[in-house]
C-alpha cells in the first residue's frame, strides 16, 4: 500500500493506493494520526486506488474521524470504489462519514 500526502487549496489530501487490510492499516493510521496531532483542519482521503478494504480499514477511518471531531476538523472520504463503499454500508457507518464521489465535490464539502 502507498500513501501520498499533498496539499490542495489548503486541504490535506491523503491519497491511498493498494489494499487496506490488517497489515497495511497501521501505516495509514500513523499517517492520519500525524495530521490529527497537528490539528489539520481539512482532510480529504482519496480512495480511488483502493480495491479492497477490510474491517481494520474502516476502524482506522473511524478513529481518524473521532480525532478530527475533537478539534472541529473536517474529514471527507472521496472516490470510493463500490466494493469499498459497501464495507461502510455493512457496518452501518456510511451515515457518520462525509462521502464524496469526486475530488471537486470533496473539496467543496470540506470547505476549500
Amino acid at each position, binding site marked *: 500500500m502507498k500513501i501520498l500526502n499533498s496539499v490542495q487549496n489548503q486541504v490535506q489530501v491523503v491519497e491511498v493506493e493498494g489494499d487496506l487490510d490488517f497489515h497495511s492499516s497501521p501505516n495509514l493510521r500513523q499517517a492520519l494520526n500525524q495530521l490529527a496531532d497537528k490539528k489539520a483542519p481539512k482532510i480529504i482521503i482519496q480512495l480511488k486506488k483502493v480495491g479492497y478494504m477490510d474491517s*481494520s480499514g474502516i476502524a482506522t477511518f473511524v478513529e481518524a474521524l473521532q480525532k478530527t471531531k475533537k478539534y472541529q476538523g473536517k474529514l471527507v472520504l472521496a472516490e470510493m470504489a463500490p466494493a469499498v463503499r459497501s464495507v461502510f454500508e455493512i457496518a452501518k*457507518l456510511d451515515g457518520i462519514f462525509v462521502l464524496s464521489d469526486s475530488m471537486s465535490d470533496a473539496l467543496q464539502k470540506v470547505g476549500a
Partner: protein
Amino acid sequence: MDSIIEVRDLVKKFDGRAVLNGVNVGIPRGKITVIMGGSGCGKSTFLRHLIGLHQPTSGDILFEGKNIAKMDRNGMDGVRRSFGMMFQGSALFNSMTVGENVAVPLREHTPLDESTIKIIVKIKLELVGLTGFEHFYPHQISGGMKKRVALARAIALDPKIVFYDEPGAGLDPITASMIDQLILDLSRKLNMTSVVVTHEMKSAFRIADQVIMLHKGKVLEVGSAQQIQNSSNAYVRQFIEGEPEGVIPFKQTSEAYLQGLLDS
C-alpha cells in the same frame, strides 16, 4: 461451480479403521454448505480436515488451489487466517469480557493498535446484534447470546470462510432458528462461504444452499436442500424422517459383537 475448497479422494484411518473412505466433494464459494449425517458418520472428522486440524491418510484438500493436506505448519498458519470457526459449545473464555473474547484473534494475529481493535470489536458486535454487551462476562449472558459472541469472534478477522460445528446444539428451537437467521444474514451480507455441520434437519433445510450427506465415511448424496428433501435414497429418507428402523440398522450385527469380544 466455483469451489473455494475441493476435496479429492480423502481417506482417514484411525488404527486401520477408515472413518473417511474416499470423499470427493466441492464447497461452493459464497454459499452455505451443510454437512449432515448420523453420529459417527465422519462429519466432525471431515470438518477437522477442512480446517487443517487433521492430516489425511491419503487424498487432497485444495483451498483456493493450495493443497492444505500437504502443507507445513507455517503455510497452514497463513491459510487459517482466512478461516473463522464457531465451536459447538461457543468456547468463550469465561475470565474475559464479551469484547475481550472478540478481540482475541485480532490481538493474536494482527499488528493492529488497541484503539483500532476496540472499534473493530464494536463493529462485529453490532453485526451479531450485541451492541452494548461488550463489558459483560459470558456467565452474565444467555446461551444464544454466547453463540452470537462466538460468531462475532469467528468473523473478527474478516474470514473468507466460516465453519460452524453444530451451531444450534443446546439451544431452544426459537433461539436456534435465530442463530440460523444470523448465519444466513451474515453469509449474504459479508459474501462469506459458510460450512455448517449439523444433524438438525430443520436447521439444515432452512439455511443450506448445498447439502452434503455423509454415511459411513463416504458422500452418500450432494444436492440442494430441496433435492435432498425429495431424495429417493433409502438412507437419506430414513435420516430425514428419523425412523429407528430402516436400511440403517438399529443394532450392530451379532457378528460385530462377537468379533469385538474375540478381538479384545
